[in-house]
């Protein structure tokens, strides 16, 4: 079954249309990358799927069910998102514990203490981080917390918006390993936005190259590794990375 299906998706912010007629199908368990430069509309697609960019037309289906425009409590149990900026994605006045318990409280799930402990272990954070505030954590640790928060509701699909671009190389490696392990363990579907092609090569199965709000090319990662992309723009991107 498809985890995510986008049909003729147009997305606007106010009067400007930023995504034009995107069609995409991501099967369950796949890790799919959207690559492109800033302003290509790749993050906007993630926000629309998450329900944070409600001005769209076309169709978005999650696990076969069409989704509504706004934020939807049922969708939030299947789709969660990890944001780019580990400094901006955690509430500065809330402890890690309350950030992680919040999704459980919203959905009335019990056993919160145990679940928080379990998820911290999953993302490789020591229990002593549990009652710290975000400013007492490093960037990589914060990003682990953000991933943990996304996992609290045991979603099937994770939307990753440049999850490592704000991190140091060595920390990026840790987070990429973590994401890879989590996907294997929990059979997650990833839709990741990035501009970093080597990261795609490490973590993803397929990729779509985007430019000016349109998909230019969809390719297998094997093609990327061999430098076998068809469209001139994709090759340009590849050349800029490899240079």
């Amino acid at each position, binding site marked *: 079954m498809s985890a995510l299906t986008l049909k003729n998706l147009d997305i606007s912010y106010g009067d400007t249309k930023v995504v034009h007629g995107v069609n995409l199908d991501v099967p369950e368990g796949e890790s799919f990358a959207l690559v492109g*430069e*800033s302003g290509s509309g790749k993050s906007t697609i993630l926000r629309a799927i998450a329900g944070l960019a409600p001005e769209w037309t076309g169709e978005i289906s999650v696990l076969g069910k069409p989704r509504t425009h706004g934020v939807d409590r049922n969708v939030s149990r299947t789709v969660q998102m990890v944001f780019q900026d580990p400094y901006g994605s955690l509430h500065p006045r809330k402890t890690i514990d309350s950030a992680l318990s919040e999704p459980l409280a919203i959905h009335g799930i019990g056993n919160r203490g145990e679940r928080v402990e379990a998820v911290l272990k999953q993302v490789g954070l020591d229990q002593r981080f549990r009652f710290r505030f975000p400013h007492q954590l490093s*960037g990589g640790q914060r990003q682990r917390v953000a991933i943990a928060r996304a996992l609290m509701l045991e979603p099937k699909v994770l939307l990753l918006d440049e999850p490592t671009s704000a991190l*140091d*190389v*060595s*920390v*990026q*490696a*840790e987070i*990429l*390993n973590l994401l*890879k392990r989590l996907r294997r363990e929990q059979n997650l579907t990833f839709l990741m936005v990035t*501009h970093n*092609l*080597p*990261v795609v*090569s*490490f973590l993803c199965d397929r990729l779509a190259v985007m430019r000016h709000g349109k998909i230019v090319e969809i390719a297998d990662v094997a093609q*990327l*590794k*061999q*430098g076998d992309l068809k469209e001139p723009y994709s090759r*340009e*991107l*590849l050349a*800029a*990375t*490899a*240079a």
Partner: protein
Amino acid sequence: MSSPLLEVENLRVSFPTHSGRVEVVKGLSFTLGRERLGIVGESGSGKSMTGRSILKLIRKPGEVTADKLRFEGIDILDQNEKQMRAIRGARISMVMQDPKFSLNPVMTVGEQIAEALVTHQRLGRKEVQQRILDMLVAVRINDPERVAKLYPHEVSGGMGQRIMIAMMLIPEPELLIADEPTSALDVSVQAQVLDIIDDLVTRKGMGLILISHDLALVSRYCDRILVMNAGRVVEECAAGQLDKAQHPYTRGLLAAMPVIDETRDELPVLDRTQWAGT
């Protein structure tokens, strides 16, 4: 190589915290000729503080000490604020990370470049205008007359950064410090901007200090590389020799980067305990 442009010996930068002063740069030494030096390190390695201390931009309560910090024979630490202003911009320039925060939003591009020029030199109005247009052409802006009249919000990130470079290079400094000049830009624009810096620096025979977290990028644009970790230089090597790096930290950094034809199932991770506290 001719006499060194910049000599740094035992540079230390410290900040006070709850538990006493903490050094972020712990005894850094290097000399720079008219060459391109790369300083690489992760966040918190002290690389930016190094760049800032050369321009005496470390604010109180931060403290800079050094056995020697000389630029063309001038002792930087002895200069007062007024003397430093004559050096900053005119003789040593700095390009910062994000053009959005470095350009004044209520002045046109042309006015800002002009300001950078006339603060340090007395020139006729026509000559200023000509120098600005030449400079904009030098940073590969195709229609300089039009761009000079734009406001910063009307230009793209890549163009903004090229304008910054124009501003920094127009007084013809002898040393350019570029602190993560391209990390806010797209990959394809990054190369463009660095090519411009590279071209101008080599053509004018300036010194360049390129500060970045990106090993690959630094090795491409520099002659020599210093790898910093926790305030110290752990490795110094010629840019071409990076793959022969000795120190485990450098090797760890190189290995942690995914590559375009990635076959590893897991990326090697730095064992931080090995360096923490050293």
